[in-house]
């Protein structure tokens, strides 16, 4: 069996092939078609949006949560929450999500080697204290959320994280339980098409 793109964690840019009709491929009424076409745009994730737009209201509502989680300035975007997102995505096996957020993490943290090793070895790889604490919390939230207790937050508190920063990590990692499941089950990643030099 060939190891496909969907099995190989990478920092490279990936694209995504839908498994389901895009909303514009179905027999929606003209007014809805206009709304959907305007909303989809022509970005690199247009096909993903076009599939989610089959439930337009849920897509719109989710987009606000997604955008907020992504762009919130309070607290400011941090490598920590990106590492939480990568932890969830690595455990769930979402190669596409890992690729996007590993790049953001590498840019914010300047620790490209660390994240590359994390992608290869997984959550048990050797990590410095802050990274270890984030990954442990993200992993527990991902695999056994009901086991979380106040003690699970202590390692981050000891390292100087305040409540809002801890909630930011938790919320961001929690949201990837959502993002991973949609990305993994409505389509699959593919390597970016080579463009002529």
């Amino acid at each position, binding site marked *: 069996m060939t190891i496909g793109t969907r099995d190989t964690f990478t920092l490279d840019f990936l694209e995504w092939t839908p498994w389901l009709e895009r909303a514009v491929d179905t027999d929606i009424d003209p007014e809805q078609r206009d709304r959907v076409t305007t909303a989809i745009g022509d970005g690199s994730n247009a096909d993903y949006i076009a599939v989610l737009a089959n439930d337009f*209201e849920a897509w719109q509502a*989710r987009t606000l*949560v997604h955008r*907020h989680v992504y762009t919130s300035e309070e607290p400011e975007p941090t490598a920590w929450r990106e590492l939480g997102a990568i932890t969830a995505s690595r455990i769930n096996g979402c190669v596409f999500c890992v690729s996007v957020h590993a790049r953001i993490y590498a840019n914010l943290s300047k620790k490209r080697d660390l994240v590359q090793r994390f992608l290869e070895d997984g959550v048990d790889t050797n990590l410095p204290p802050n990274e270890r604490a984030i990954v442990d919390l993200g992993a527990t939230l991902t695999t056994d959320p009901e086991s979380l207790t106040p003690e699970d937050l202590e390692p981050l508190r000891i390292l100087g994280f305040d*409540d809002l920063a801890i*909630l930011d990590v938790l919320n961001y990692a929690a949201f990837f339980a959502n993002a991973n499941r949609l990305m993994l089950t409505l389509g699959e990643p593919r390597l970016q098409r080579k463009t002529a030099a």
Partner: protein
Amino acid sequence: MTAINIQTTDVVNAIIGIDDDSPIAQLRNQKPDLVREVQEYYQSLFEPVASSVAALPVVDRYLVAVRVASHTGSTAVAEWYARLAADAGASPDAIGQAREVDERATGATPLGAALRHADLLTTRPSDARKEDLQDLKKAGFSPAAIVSLSQTIAFVSYQLRLVAGLRAFGGQQ
């Protein structure tokens, strides 16, 4: 169980069993837009517009939510949706079957297919294949219904972890 006398209109707070002015709610409210947006995401799926209801009945969404939350033992979240399912007319048997995650969901009904899809997405999402969507189509699901179902499963997967994470701030309640 969720206290009935708590003062909140926010579903996450209600599931945790906290008032809007509790310390955990105040922590959340440091990002008020996000609190509102999570609530609206919930409403888009569980209080959907008529065209979306036609694609996937609300009572089936509640039962799927019970299933998702039962997989992680998220009792308070499962209880929330079980109550809604009962209010919407689901039988005790149907709710019991949604809770029994050790038993494979059977039945050729759309609900049976929806519960099996919930099992797959909740416990082994990276095993999903294109054929799984074909199976849903064979059970009568339109593309809109498949996306509503997937969003329902994905939303509850987020919600139950947000609830668990917030509860870990405990002690301050």
